[in-house]
């Protein structure tokens, strides 16, 4: 079926934001935060809970489970009360009101990420695309953001790519 015709909402200003890094966010990993994350996923591996086991396995301290890249340092002056990160970080705002999380891709460099680490991250818009959603009967804006995480020694530990899908309220 051919795509429905629709008017693009991508402007030159939006395209100019591709590749431009936003403000830095600082995130911490502590023994308590690693245990809490591991517990919430349901891990039973003692390496996430017992520092002696973690060290025996070659880790500096409790290792971060896959998906855990620290907790942004919270400060009510500039943190988002719902999501915890810096308010307005990332820079790009879609003109559409409704948002879905489209996907997550995290690639690790192989550097250990452990309790005691502090990670600094910066996010840049990587791409913008549009397509028609047959299911919802509305156009969708698909934005991919790329975030690079660097540890306290200046080593890049991970790169994550998040896909956000925004769209108008059907019927509007």
């Amino acid at each position, binding site marked *: 079926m051919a795509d429905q015709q629709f008017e693009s909402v991508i402007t030159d200003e939006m395209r100019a934001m591709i590749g431009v890094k936003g403000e830095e966010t600082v995130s911490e990993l502590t023994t308590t935060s690693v245990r*809490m994350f591991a517990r*919430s996923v349901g*891990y*039973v*591996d003692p390496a996430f809970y017992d520092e002696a086991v973690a060290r025996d*396995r070659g880790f500096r301290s409790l290792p971060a489970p896959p998906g855990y890249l620290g907790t942004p340092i919270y400060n009510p002056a500039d943190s988002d009360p719902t999501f915890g990160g810096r308010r307005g970080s990332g820079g790009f705002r879609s003109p559409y009101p409704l948002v879905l999380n489209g*996907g997550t891709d*995290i690639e*690790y460099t192989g550097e250990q990420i452990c309790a005691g680490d502090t990670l600094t991250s910066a996010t840049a818009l990587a791409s913008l695309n549009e397509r028609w959603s047959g299911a919802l009967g509305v156009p969708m804006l698909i934005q991919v953001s790329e975030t690079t995480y660097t540890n306290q020694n200046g080593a890049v530990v991970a790169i994550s790519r998040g896909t956000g899908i925004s769209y108008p309220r059907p019927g509007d």
Partner: protein
Amino acid sequence: MTDAVPDQIYFEDIDVGDSIPELEKSPTSQQLVQWAAGSGDFYQIHYDTSYAQDTGLEDIIVHGALKHAFLGELLWRFAGPEGQVKRVQCSYRGMDPAAQGRESAQEKKFTLRGTVTRKYTEGERNFVELSVEGVRADGSVSTPGTGTVVLPSRG
């Protein structure tokens, strides 16, 4: 109860097309609250039924990032104590509800599966690529993805 630490598997023991041991989850509202605290994401659609319904959802839904983390655990267990998880990627193709109240957690069973698609060596590191998926109790796939792990060699 699954083994806390699975036996180590080695690069030589893996072939393309192999299925890896499955991981079964049954996300409950309690787990979503634990995840909210663990991840820092306190968006109300994940623990407040009325709020979720006001946004057009049928009920509270499992966080996408928690499903990504489940796939991370699947790969962590496959890689074993001497392996490493190198990459975890997935798409969120559909919403997954969480078990609440007296509802059986088993009704909201969410199974994580993986199949080896490629193996190769770069330098001294042995990589295994997989196709992975999160599967609902009715067998439909809500969370397809890919993963890469580094495995030790018997050599």
